[in-house]
């Protein structure tokens, strides 16, 4: 997988197929991105599991905190890692001990570890790096267009009127739209320099 620019179908396929998401580094502080990404994904119907050893015994929006991936005690489709690049490898190594293996490992905006990604991909796990599932969900459903963001999709079909708590369709009949290649190149250059 080219981790500088993901095809829309790759991201759409992941967000349409996973049902449970364990979020490593989920925070109970309501101004942290992990908190509101967790909340958004829960509202869109994903079965969310907060992982944070510092908050075991408490819950996040009604879901009990779990200390580590090994403690979840049930299969999980996707692991969403809200940690800096330097803390990715141990989380991926722990994920690779799970049985069954997760189908997807997702690293948040700003997080990228190509060696960890290669390890996960070598056992058939799909990997996404330096992206936010909330932003990608909003982009493919075109909900993020309210913010003037280039969704990179075009469609001549009428979308369903969004209502509270509904699962927005990511299967809009759409074609590729405006490119953001310059931004992808800049992210790649930054990775290569670090």
């Amino acid at each position, binding site marked *: 997988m080219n981790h500088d620019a993901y095809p829309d179908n790759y991201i759409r396929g992941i967000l349409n197929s996973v049902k449970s998401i364990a979020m490593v580094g989920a925070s109970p502080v309501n101004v942290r*991105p992990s908190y509101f990404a967790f909340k958004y994904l829960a509202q869109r119907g994903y079965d969310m599991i907060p992982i944070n050893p510092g908050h075991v015994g408490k819950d996040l929006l009604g879901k009990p905190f779990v200390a580590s991936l090994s403690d979840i005690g049930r299969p999980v489709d996707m692991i969403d890692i809200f940690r800096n690049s330097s803390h990715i490898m141990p989380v991926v190594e722990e994920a690779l001990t799970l049985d069954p293996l997760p189908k997807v490992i997702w690293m948040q905006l700003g997080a990228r570890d190509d060696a960890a990604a290669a390890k996960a991909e070598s056992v058939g796990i799909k990997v996404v790096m330096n992206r936010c599932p909330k932003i990608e969900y909003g982009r493919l459903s075109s909900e993020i267009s309210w913010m*003037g*963001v*280039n*969704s990179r999709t075009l469609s001549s*079909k009428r979308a369903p009127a969004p209502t509270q708590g509904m699962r927005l369709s990511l299967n809009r009949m759409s074609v590729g739209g405006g490119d953001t290649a310059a931004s992808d190149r800049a992210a790649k250059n930054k990775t290569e320099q670090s």
Partner: protein
Amino acid sequence: MSDRPPGFSTLAVHAGAQPDPTTGARATPIYQTTSFVFNDADHAASLFGLQAFGNIYTRIGNPTNAVLEERVAALEGGTAALAVASGHAAQVVILQQLLQPGDEFIAARKLYGGSINQFTHAFKSFGWNVVWADPDDISSFERAVTPRTKAIFIESIANPAGSITDIEAISTVARKAGVPLIVDNTLASPYLIRPIDHGADIVVHSLTKFLGGHGNSLGGIIVDAGTFDWSTGGKYPMLSEPRPEYHGIRLQETFGNFAFAIACRVLGLRDLGPALSPFNAFMILTGIETLPLRMQKHCENAKAVAEFLAGHPAVASVSYAGLPSDKYNQLARKYAPKGAGAVFTFSLKGGYDAGVNLVSKLQLFSHLANVGDTRSLVIHPASTTHSQLDDAAKVKSGAGPDVVRLSIGIEDKEDLIADLEQALGA
């Protein structure tokens, strides 16, 4: 549908717009409303805290304006955009995110006279200090860099003389200095030049000109290229540090490669207030649908008029980068191969008086202070758009006393040439 990326003209018609979910309306509706209801208290709090996507109040965002924003972002190859009330408002909002009082930015000396004035006087009262550099001498940008430099500002095609700026060379200086390059792309429009492809980090437009294209609506827009890393060195605290207005959110961390556009919206537009009317957004969107067709005609007509003027005995010189003999022709071939734009200047052998005489005799050309209209326009910059500059600065910016500026419209070129011929001849 194939994975083939759509072309520019397809984006100009479709990007950002989808049939209205409620009514099925195919043209983008004008959401002429100040405010939007919340689902409940939690939804309201999430929207105010930047935690959910949605509409609150038209001073922060509006669905009609959002279509315009996404369309221009797509045409420029940026990650996101923010539309505001005018090009001048866009410049204030951009620099408010980048500069603290006492900071500096470097600007090309060849700019729209209104920008020179805004940078020199209005911004001085905010403590934002402009340092001028010569776009024809790249080393003058290098020499102007200091530890307080926060940005570099240039025009892709510079007003008034239509000179072409070497965007890539200046972007190299900006990268070395660790500051973003801001490019005003008003006179080119993304149809002729896409500055992001040449290293721009932020693109700004007066939508009033070629994008709107019909001389009927003011507007400005800021496009985020998504290329600049705002987190390094604490140089851009509006983007990298926790924002007290939003309970400690860090915008770069939260919004990634479109954080600058969000900063302009939630810190700039929200607090300074220069919102674009949704009606203007609708007019400008309608204009953009025909941008490729209009720009082809503007450029074809401009080249024909420039060639006619260059061969006329009363004309001393023509400054149009589309002419093979022009100083900027090499740069025009590189950056604007589809055409060198439609705004340029010429000077008359008879000097200032001949210029005044010409303007008074023209019948089709309108004498007014705008460019990028369907109609052909004429003005004498030294006494109008560039009148606030002293004589030396006028000459340096290409607006000397003998210079006349034209903005060529989309009429029949034979009629434009005939009008100039009768006005020059008598």
